[in-house]
């Protein structure tokens, strides 16, 4: 059992959990994830390790409520326990000195970008961060990102905070002003990651995205997380989750993410929830 030591709400439907998991905290690196199962009847879902504290033996998860399991998790309280937390899974991010790096997080994607951006900063990079959300209320971790970035841009779809528009706007501007960019890391909804890939592609800027296909085991055993990378199937859980954005088949990824949409919808939320998947 893995105890929830702290829980707090970050925005509408997004919660942060600090969880007791000393073995994982001891080992994990930025870019890795865990697979959790809430109870005996639960399904296995992957969640990125958004932060960790090796001394305290804790990991932090930031979870957006989108369906059955994430909703049930949102109902859990401080002091409750999660039955299974397995990890750390996936390959760590390639942290080294690149020069100027741009770290882009969209929506809940800011959470997994944070430990990577922090590690890139510690590796001596000049870190430009771009974080975006649909509106100001949904923006998360602005303070944390400010603390570890040399420059920070905020975008909202409705202009309620920062630049009006999507995260690619500041990126475009930087490229337009001929600033040298050595590395781009983008995590968020698939359409956003595809958008970033299209912006950097013509300039050959090394761009990495972290993919989130549907997973079961997370150990390479089921093949459910397969994604075409440069026309070859890779298993995101063991070969990724980070891949060269310019080689990813984003259309295929989006189609496969919808595999259980009807079933999950009928089964769980009856269409009355706030999940963006209807």
């Amino acid at each position, binding site marked *: 059992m893995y105890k929830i030591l702290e829980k707090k709400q970050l925005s509408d439907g997004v919660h942060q959990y600090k969880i007791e998991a000393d073995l994982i905290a001891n080992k994990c690196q930025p870019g890795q994830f865990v697979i959790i199962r809430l109870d005996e009847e639960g399904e296995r879902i992957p969640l990125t390790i958004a932060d960790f504290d090796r001394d305290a033996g804790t990991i932090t998860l930031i979870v957006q409520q989108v369906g059955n399991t994430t909703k049930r998790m949102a109902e859990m309280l401080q002091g409750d326990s999660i039955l299974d937390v397995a990890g750390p899974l996936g390959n760590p991010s390639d942290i080294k000195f690149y020069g100027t790096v741009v770290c882009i997080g969209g929506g809940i994607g800011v959470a997994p970008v944070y430990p990577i951006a922090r590690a890139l900063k510690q590796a001596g990079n000049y870190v430009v961060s771009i974080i975006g959300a649909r509106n100001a209320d949904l923006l998360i971790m602005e303070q944390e990102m400010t603390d570890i970035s040399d420059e920070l841009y905020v975008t909202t779809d409705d202009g309620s905070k920062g630049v009006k528009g999507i995260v690619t706007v500041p990126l475009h501007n930087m490229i337009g002003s001929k600033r040298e960019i050595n590395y781009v890391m983008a995590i968020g909804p698939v359409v956003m990651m595809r958008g970033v890939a299209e912006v950097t592609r013509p300039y050959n800027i090394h761009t990495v995205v972290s993919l989130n296909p549907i997973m079961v085991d997370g150990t*390479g055993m089921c093949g459910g997380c397969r994604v075409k990378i440069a026309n070859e*199937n890779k298993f995101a859980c063991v070969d990724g989750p980070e891949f060269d954005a310019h080689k990813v088949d984003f259309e295929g990824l989006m189609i*496969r993410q919808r595999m259980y949409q009807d079933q999950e919808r009928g089964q769980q939320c009856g269409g009355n929830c706030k999940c963006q998947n209807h």
Partner: protein
Amino acid sequence: MPKSLKHKMPEQTPQDRRNNFNEVALGYDETTARAEADRCLQCANPFCRQGCPVNVNIPAFIKHIKNGDFEEAISEIKTKNSLPAVCGRVCPQENQCEKFCILGKKNEPVAIGRLERFAADYARGNKKKSESSAQDKTMGEQIGKVAVIGSGPAGLTVAGDLALLGYKVTVFEALHAAGGVLMYGIPEFRLPKDIVQHEINELRNLGVDIAVNSIIGRTFTIDELLNEQGYDAVFIGTGAGLPNFLNIPGENYNGVYAANEFLTRSNLMQAYKKNATTPIYKGDKVAVIGAGNVAMDAARTALRLGASNVYIVYRRSEQEMPARAEEIHHAREEGVEFKLLTNPVRILGNEKGWVEGLECVKMELGEADLSGRRKPVEVKNSNFVLEVDSVIIAIGQGPNPLIQYTTPGLEVNKHGNINTDEQGITSKPGVFAGGDIVTGAATVISAMGAGRKAAESIHKYIQDKKKID
């Protein structure tokens, strides 16, 4: 019942069973078991034992059954085979013990597998003495500490054997449940999960610790286990878990599964149950590619999830099908249709990305290949489309590379299987391996046989080391 034939084992009727996940074969009762045991000729030089990868004393345990000494029967089996309830159900007996039975020359061989199952089920139903005596043996001082990676039949065998010798054993399992393929792969209707859990609980009773959610290579590395955590030796029994794909167009359409994913969702995650939280896509017309045990299990699971047509698509012919004879027979009875000498070339999908069909080409048998099987060759212009809304790929699994990548000094072959000698000794001191990770996908009993040998090697290694120290 003529003496020339095996006693039939009661089964659910095909009509009933294709609508439920309960066990298909129901097992012998005492009278039938004793009558079947009576068919055994008690050969002085029993050939059946040569066919058993763990060398169970078959005539001896059968004699006990004949005499009604069922507890003696199970004690006899358990000296060689720690998972008889499992093996009695899933071993390919027709290629092993029963193949060599002298009765089989003219008539049907003795139903050794069914008798093994009977003895194991009897013992489970009637708390037996063999267990408690086994427990006593572990009460003494612990003579060393061993880490076992993977809780499939290979790992469980090593854990059981070494615990009996007095070692402190911890089994590390990546998934949330122990049992390996026995839990995630083989369906409930063939191997009830409470039987597997019963066997695993017996190991716990012997003092074996089972640490789930522990991915070796990630949570810990083998070097950490040996150098930092004080394990004297490590056994790797991580199986053949990495599913192969066909590399034909359309494999990523929705509705296409690797059999491992389909079976894991249904078995381990129990998606076949009504209110399961884990979803599974239930095709109406399902093509399963391959003809091994994995393919039969996927096909029969698809039927039970409500498919109206299930096809086995296999590029070779009837004789080459690698599945157990009984599974092929059961699948046929339940209505699975066999498209033999048929090779898939392309999966067709609609504009929304869902499977609509499987394009195949007919095959014919040509010259014999290296494996001695006649090689299938395409019949020109014989392409046709099988209308299906789901395709399940069951063409084999390879080794998971995680341990190889994170363990310097561990030699593997070109396929990524770990190199060992006959005794399960790897290139890295203190590290042993066995089961599917060494041989490639094989059988439960061969994994157990390899586990037994490795346990002997580990025992010897640790005791020799202690002498030098």
